[in-house]
Structures are given as C-alpha cells and as structure tokens.
C-alpha cells in the first residue's frame, strides 16, 4: 500500500501497526528517511506530487517488489508539502517469510523512490530556493537492480 500525507507521522507507531496480527511473517524490514538541514543550508523542503499518478506509479513498483522478493506485505508512506529538517519524509516497511527478502525489498524500493518516483522537490534556505534532481549516486544505486 502507498499513502501520501501532508502531516508529520510517527515511524514507531507505523511499525507497531504494520507488525500487528501476523502469524506467517518472519521478517519485517523498515527504512525511515529524515529531512536533513545540510548545515543550515536547508530550512524547509517542499515536495510536490501529482495526486493519483504518483500513487499509481509507486504502486506499480510495489507490485514488482512483491513478485521479485516474494513479499507478504508492503507499506510506503511518503510526505508531501512542506517538511522541516528532522521530520520523517518517507517510511517503507516490507514483510516476508525470512529476513533477506525483507531487507533487499526495502533497499530496492528506496532506490526506486529516490531516483524515479514522481515527486518534485525544492529546497528553501537562507540563499533562496532551488529544485533538486536525483544525484549520480541515486541513479547508480537504482542500476544495481537491473
């Protein structure tokens, strides 16, 4: 499942809820991404999505991860709107029978989210504002899975 939210979220509460009432899941891996201050250069991040389209594209990638790693469940929660340093931006949880699939699927989904997911990200700081594009490292990370 993919959800976008304008509101801050609590990764611990999401993990507790995600693990509830599971009897066949032997492994849950999670990733939480936080907004960085970049030593004061970033005061706010602004993340824009295309409602409907963004969820559908991420959902396609979740479907691929489910098949490729044999996952039992996936949750992706992503912030949109204005985010301040220290706040969680993204939470990914993967559930599998055993740990390797859960770890790898979480890594796979984050590499996709960081390089290809339909978001437009702007950094605001004391020197003004600028649009951010994926780094060469982000693209190289995604290439590991092809």
């Amino acid at each position, binding site marked *: 499942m993919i959800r976008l939210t304008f509101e801050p979220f609590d990764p611990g509460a999401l993990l507790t809820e995600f693990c509830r009432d599971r009897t066949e899941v032997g492994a849950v891996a999670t990733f939480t991404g936080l907004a960085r201050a970049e030593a004061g250069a970033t005061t706010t991040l602004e*993340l824009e999505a295309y409602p*409907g*389209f963004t969820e559908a594209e991420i959902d396609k990638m979740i479907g691929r991860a489910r098949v490729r790693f044999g996952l039992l469940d996936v949750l992706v929660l*992503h912030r949109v709107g204005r985010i301040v340093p220290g706040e969680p931006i993204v939470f990914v949880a993967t559930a599998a029978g055993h740990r390797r699939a859960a770890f790898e699927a979480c890594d796979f989904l984050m590499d996709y989210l960081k390089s290809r*997911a339909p*978001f*437009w990200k702007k950094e605001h700081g004391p020197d003004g504002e600028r649009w951010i594009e*994926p780094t060469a490292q982000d693209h190289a990370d995604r290439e590991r899975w092809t």
Partner: protein
Amino acid sequence: MARVLLFGPLRDLAGWREREIDSPFLSVLRARLAEEDAVLGAALGGPGVQVALDQVVVRGDAPLNARTEVAFLPPMSGG
C-alpha cells in the same frame, strides 16, 4: 476544454499551475502555449519532460477531448 497541469520547475517558470485551454490535439495545445510564452513552450519540449493524458504517459501527438487532463511532468526529483 482540456485541463492543463504544470508541475515542479515548469510551474515556477510559467507562473501558473492549472489552466483550461480549448484544443483538439496535444500538438495544437503545445503551439498555443508556445505562442503565448516562448520560454515555457521551449521548456515543455525540453529534455526529460513527459506528458500524461488522464494520468497515462504518452509519446508524440494525441487527440484531446473536452475533459482531458494534460499534465506536463518535468524530470522527477524522487522522494
């Protein structure tokens, strides 16, 4: 009237996010936008800019109906 949406840097460049524009084809819509704003027109055809019609990415020209949602998607930042 097609509903035209701009995202990310394209919205900043144009100074608008959403407009209704009457146009029978995507190519005609592009020409109209370029006529009004040459800088935007060039940016809409720039590298990595994709177009989605009713949330489906298309390549090349396509007919538009009265309620088509036309979204111009600049290179994505990721999350």
